[in-house]
């Protein structure tokens, strides 16, 4: 068995194929790591033929911080705060994934108050993440104004987080065994205010962006991936649902309080950028619906099951828990030796890492403008890809 290991230089030095009747020459161009459209430090090598993209080669690692290695030297409680910094737009859902893994391994039953607050917080986080995505999509397509509108409304949700948690972005709020602290007395009122304010705004924004002819032209039938392709590519979240696969862990394997609420899973049909757009906008509405059902009935109870224990030692063996973040399925896989507080191996099944590779399948033989729309509709967060 001979294994061939290639390098990037070899990869991009493929000679151009000369079967084109116009005798054009293909060339490689480097997009990123500092590029406005790549949402951070993603680097793409594009094989172009004029304006047409023949191949996209993502080059990762520009923010690879070795979180899995650090995690092997940290306790589970400490590892929670590193997950904040992976997918910082679904920070609390990342915390929840670690907590869920630990609680599942310890066979802990949580009370309803914890579950309700976790669910509400996660949905608020999902809304703010999608709002930011909505604005950034506008900016990537060349309309700067939606970007600011999206940010303006996201700010209100950030205020709620700040009041309760004291932090705006990296929360570290959901912890193994409960919550960091109880909610602020104003929390319920503020959430209701936001819902009353933002629900009509969503319709208004849809008029600004969704009703626009240029947006429709730019998104419809662009970057189509079929359900089979999507499944094989392992994409999850809104990207998979836009292709017509109704895999939403909140519905198929309810965790938190999702089993007790009534909501619909938005599913697309074609799998193009427009479907991904539509699925996310619909998810904002459904998240509001979930919060509306829960916010009035938060039961009483403790927010931390016991005093923060000094040690969490998971039973020997492998443990896995997964949940649905704003971008897809996040799984935390931990192997414990049953003796130490630190895991032998901790691994994050990152939704963005799995989603980002579909950009090549989407963008083959499309234009550079389509590539930007595709990256934007994938809604990737680069630190979560690289970890």
């Amino acid at each position, binding site marked *: 068995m001979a294994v061939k290991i290639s390098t990037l230089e070899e990869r991009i030095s493929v000679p151009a194929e000369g079967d084109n009747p116009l005798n054009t020459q293909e*060339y490689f*161009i480097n997009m990123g790591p500092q*590029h*406005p*459209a790549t949402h951070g430090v993603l680097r793409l090598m594009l094989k172009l033929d004029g*304006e047409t993209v023949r191949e996209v080669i993502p080059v990762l690692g520009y923010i690879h911080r070795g979180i899995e290695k650090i995690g092997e030297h940290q306790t589970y409680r400490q590892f929670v705060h590193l997950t904040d910094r992976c997918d910082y737009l679904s920070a609390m859902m990342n915390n929840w994934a670690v907590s869920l893994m630990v609680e599942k391994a310890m066979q802990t039953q949580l009370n309803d108050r914890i579950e309700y607050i976790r669910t509400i917080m996660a949905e608020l986080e999902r809304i703010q993440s999608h709002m930011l995505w909505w604005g950034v999509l*506008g*900016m*990537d*397509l*060349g*309309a*700067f*104004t939606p970007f*600011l*509108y999206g940010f*303006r409304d996201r700010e209100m949700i950030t205020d709620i987080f700040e009041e309760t948690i004291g932090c705006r972005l990296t929360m570290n709020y959901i912890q193994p065994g409960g919550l960091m602290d109880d909610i602020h007395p104003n929390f319920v009122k503020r959430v209701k205010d936001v819902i009353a304010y933002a629900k009509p705004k969503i319709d208004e924004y849809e008029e*600004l*962006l969704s009703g*626009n002819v*240029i*947006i429709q*032209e*730019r998104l419809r039938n662009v970057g189509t991936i079929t359900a089979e392709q999507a499944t094989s590519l392992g994409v999850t979240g809104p990207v998979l649902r836009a292709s017509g696969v109704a895999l939403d862990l909140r519905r198929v394997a309810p965790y938190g309080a999702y089993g007790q609420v009534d909501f619909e899973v938005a599913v697309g049909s074609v799998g193009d950028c427009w479907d991904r757009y539509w699925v996310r906008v619909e998810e904002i509405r459904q998240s509001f619906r979930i919060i509306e059902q829960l916010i009035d009935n938060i039961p009483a109870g403790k927010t931390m099951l016991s005093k923060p224990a000094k040690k969490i030692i998971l039973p020997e063996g492998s443990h896995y828990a997964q949940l649905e973040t704003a971008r897809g399925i996040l799984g935390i896989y931990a192997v414990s030796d049953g003796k130490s507080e630190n895991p032998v191996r901790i691994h994050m099944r990152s939704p963005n890492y799995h989603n980002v590779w579909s950009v090549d399948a989407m963008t083959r033989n499309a*234009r*550079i*403008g*389509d*590539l*930007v729309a595709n990256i934007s509709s994938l809604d990737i967060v680069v630190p979560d890809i690289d970890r």
Partner: protein
Amino acid sequence: MLENLLTHSAFEILTLSDRAAQALAENPWEAAGYTLLALGGTGAFLSLLGMALIYVERKVAAHFQCRLGPMRVGWHGMLQSIADALKLLQKEDIIPEKADKLLFFLAPVFSIIATVLALIIIPMSPSLQVVDLNIGVIFISAVGGFGVLGILLAGWSSNNKWSLLGAMRAGAQFISYEISVTLSLLVITLLAGSLQLSEIVQSQQDGWWIWRGHIVGVVAFFVFIISSTAELNRPPFDLPEAESELTGGFHTEYSGLRFSFFFLAEFINMFIASALGATLFFGGWMPFHIGGFETFNSIMDLIPPGLWFAGKTAFIVFLMMWVRWTFPRLRVDQLMRLEWKFLLPVGFINLFAAATIVLTKLYFFPGQ
């Protein structure tokens, strides 16, 4: 008909070049003074107007986006553009090592020269025009084509693939949309019967072409405004410098003063396109007249022509800014499709309709 219009005119056209020519016989120094005034005035106007437009753009954008915009330098940030200009003057001037140095140096100069050449024939008021060419409309088209040369050279000489892509986009876009602009200019030329800008203004004494030419005028105006936005590389047609696609497009490698030339040329070109639109469709400096209502017309004449011109131009400039901060960008093929499959046929049909109108004299307010 045209002679009639001119003899009835209340406005005497006196351009700076005319004055210089008149003065040449009596006093050559006066002629030289007028020439210098024209040169210096154009230069000063260019830079001041550019800075003012940049400030206005930033403020308009800010207010569209529910924020304040520049606030710190001067009252409500009035001096912000001056600070930017001073800073850009002082920035280090980088010429990439592998760039074609001569062309890299020439590209912004071409860009700004084209702008200046177009600026001098805009009639801002009866007495505020540098030169009044009898082929004004053709001259503007020709000089406008010169400007894209600067962009193409910039993209080529930077030795940067993104720049080259931007430049090629600019070239393709300009050539395509130039046809539509010219077609809509031809409509007004047909209606007015002249290529000279001052005569086109005079011909609107009984009413602006946008409604004297009724449907034809309105269609021509919309074709003009869409395709001239495209020619200016402004959103939604800003593909040559599409920030999220090509980083900076053709000016990626430019810094400091050279970059500010492109920046300035872009904004002055916006002014020129708006001024041209105002001149051709809204009567330029001509006050709001309705043929036959002499009392009303004389009341309108009380407002100085310069203000009329400024107001109309500002309206079109605002229209362009409004579009810029509302619409997303088109894709390359969609851009071409819009031109070749929609605007071009519409432009041709409109031209035929205009010819019919001129032959049958079906204007509104036909005048004398």
